[in-house]
């Protein structure tokens, strides 16, 4: 079976620190960072939802889902986005003319428009690092060690194990694009 590279982000371990965003900017010379951390169910970042004693801070780092059926690839008139054999969806900045069709097609709103360069940009799973046998840069800079990466078609990979062991969810499954990013849910609290 072919590889299907995917990512698991454990909400139980994500401390919402934004190191992934800063790391992405440094590694990929981006202006915003292609991974952005949201605070769930809250009108503002870093502000808890709910009322005492049921307050929650649940962080959701959002990035390209590297879909198995990526609508951005279809939408791009310049073939600047390709789906690679083992999973990553790569946007080639050199071939982008900034038409933003991909941004409209993406159900996840994770393709950014770089105003300075006039082109679309998004997470490439650090493909340039994968080619060297390295892990994505956000993963190695994650303060909470909440990010896992590997082949979800290999039952022994760390991502497959996490998916098997934990209650997970994926974003907008009804969009039918087959996302490759999984989130492990926060565990229920064991009250005193």
């Amino acid at each position, binding site marked *: 079976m072919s590889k299907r590279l995917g990512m698991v982000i454990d909400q139980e*371990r994500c401390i919402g*620190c*934004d*190191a992934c965003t*800063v790391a992405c900017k440094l590694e990929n010379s981006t202006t915003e960072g292609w991974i952005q951390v949201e605070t769930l169910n809250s009108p503002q970042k870093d502000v*808890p939802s709910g*009322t*005492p004693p049921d307050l929650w801070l649940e962080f959701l780092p959002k990035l390209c889902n590297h879909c198995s059926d990526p609508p951005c690839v279809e939408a791009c008139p310049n073939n600047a986005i390709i789906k690679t054999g083992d999973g990553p969806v790569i946007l080639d900045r050199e071939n982008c003319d900034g038409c933003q069709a991909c941004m409209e097609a993406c159900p996840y709103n994770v393709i950014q428009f770089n105003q300075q360069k006039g082109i679309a940009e998004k997470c490439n799973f650090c493909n340039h690092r994968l080619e060297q046998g390295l892990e994505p840069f956000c993963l190695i800079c994650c303060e*909470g060690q909440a990010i896992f990466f590997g082949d979800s078609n290999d039952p022994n990979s760390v991502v497959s194990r996490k998916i098997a062991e934990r209650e997970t969810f994926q974003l907008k499954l009804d969009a039918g694009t087959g996302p490759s990013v999984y989130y492990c849910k926060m565990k229920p609290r064991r009250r005193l």
Partner: protein
Amino acid sequence: MTEEDNIRTIRTACSQHCGIDACGILAHVKGDRVVKLEPADFPNKIDNRICLRGLSMLDVTYHPDRLKFPMKRVGERGEGKFERISWDEALDTIAGKLKDIAAQHGWKSIGWVLGGPGAGTTKFGAYLRLASLTQSTRVSAWGYGDAGIPCGSRVIFGSQFPYMYLFGEFWQRKFPELLLIWGTNPAEAMPLQTMRKVLDAKEAGAQVIVIDPRFTVTASKADEHLALFPGTDSALALGLMNVIFQKGLHDVDFIRKETNGSFLVRIDTGKFLLGEDIGVKPPKSNMIWDEASNSTAKVKRSTLKTASITGTYDVNGIECKPAFQMLMELAKEYPPEKAAEITGVSADLITKLGEKIGVSKKVVFFTYMGVSRTYHGDICLRGLATVASVTGNVSTSFSSGNIPAVLNWDPFLKAVPGEPSFHRMAILNLYDAVINEKPYPIKALWFAFINFVNQCVDYNKIVNEFYPKLDFIVQTELFMTPSARYADIVLPVCSLLEFSDFVPHPYPYVQLQQKIIEPLYESRSDVNIVAGLAEKLGFGDYFKGGEEGLIDLILDNPTLKGEGATRERLKKGAFLLRALPEGGNFPLRVPTPSKKIEIYADWLSEEGQALPVYLPPIEAPFAKKDAKYPLSYIQGHSRFRTHSSFANVESLLKLNPEPVVDINPIDAQERNISTGDTVTVFNDRARTTLKARVSGTVRPGVVDIMQGWWADQFEEGGVNHLTHDIKNPVQDKIYEPNMNMNDVAVDVIKKEEVK
């Protein structure tokens, strides 16, 4: 060092003032420019780490606002008008000025205010060495928030820090059944060395309880959060002990063997019964009541086994009780309902937590500095440490595990053996020394790695009463901070990519901070600046070899050099300290005079603090009826800064653009305040104007402004305009008084309502 595409990589360590996280960093260098930073390898890769601030270090190093050359003040102090001078002129001016002041007032009147050296050692040591050689005054900076823990720890454990006794094993990844995180937010303040282990412990099955006035990121990971009022921690501790004693869940054997709970206390004086009181030799021996012989006996390992820890005894007509009996009687006054009334935590939760601590096999009490930043913060620490002690949840990592790094501080603390060294002054006592010349006048101050006026209490007092009394002020800095503006001479220092230092963290490793690039502009390292000044003062010989010479000095200790941790070896990577065989942990032999955990400190009986009593915070409005300022103001720590460092870094400002005051929805509604409103936080000392953020982050009755923002980033005022310099004399007696940034009363109104 490896080469690839003309990129060199060099391993260094981040010595920023988060202190113990001390990330190993691999710097990628192209030509003379650092182009990328990434986490460097540790021997155990699970310890590889970096944080968002470390990742932003290039934005500090290449910041356009870096101070580029020495400057002298040409306008009024604080006005910000400076003129470029040469290093020679700067050092000549400083040396001349210091000599003049010393001639008039003595070297004692010259002080070195050394703030947070972080994990760096020799940059701190260099100043100590020069202070020692000149016999001037070293101003200890523990008291700017970090003296409360040492004060409490010195009483109960006899050590500067309680950490190895409370959670040393936790740091070695021996995870407990119950993990209490008390008054600290490691998710933002110590994410790598501590928070990762909290997450690991939870994954390994620990139940996690967070005790904090704020619903922090750490609290969000907890199974239960106890949102107490700031500074009521010792009342909570007494409430927990009430439950524990009521149900008989304390560890009698541990109390007998490891604490002074069995020592007899005279009811008439509150002092320990001594041999001399009843004609027993040696005269200073402590006494217990031996249940086996039904008589008094001297404290010995053998007698402790059958020592009584409860009851009242008549000893030759002197009424005595074991110290533990005294503690039980104190705790009896704090049933959960009363503790609930004081702390704001429900009686039900206090009862359940007390029971849980009592029945759990192993409980770790994790705490840090935040818990101690109220007027009686030292007793808050003693309170929680006493709960740990009476339930047998104290241990030490260093009788097994890896050896601790012991540094050779002697050449810095005492540069010339046999000669007197520097005078030591607590930073909170410095206010009086400068303003009122008590206990002796201070006329000149050198500030290094400290943003004094921004980070210390009572900004207006410093500006209006403190600075004007000084004849001469020097500041070493990377940027024109609010404090640097008040200096007469400002000296540009290197960013941490531009100089070498020794970093004795994170446990169980030590590391070298390596110079990656040459100092930018005309900046110099603190060590080189001190060496230059020492030359002018005739002490140049003591600083030969610069940074590397001092690193070799500090490494000259059997636990480092003897183990092979030489400078050459450290260039290759982090050094893992030797592991000791698993061994017997007990008896602990803590470094108190009695070698026992002192749950009763008879030397504080006159002050009424022999036991961890609950004494209300000094300003806290919740303890007073009809308080003029009804809200309790505290300062949390933000992941975007280490204290006031990084506050001016563009990439971090993008994520966190401006200061806000967090206010609970209940308090906000009463004041008609919504998120985004500009509000004024005020008390009799000052007004601070900024945006409000209405959020459940703070409990009702409490407001929080994250510390570290520079005063000029506020519309009006700043974080420490609101704080006070009230001193706790008991802390002064124990060690040194702490600044109580979390013990401040304020009110908040919308800006347009300010009269």
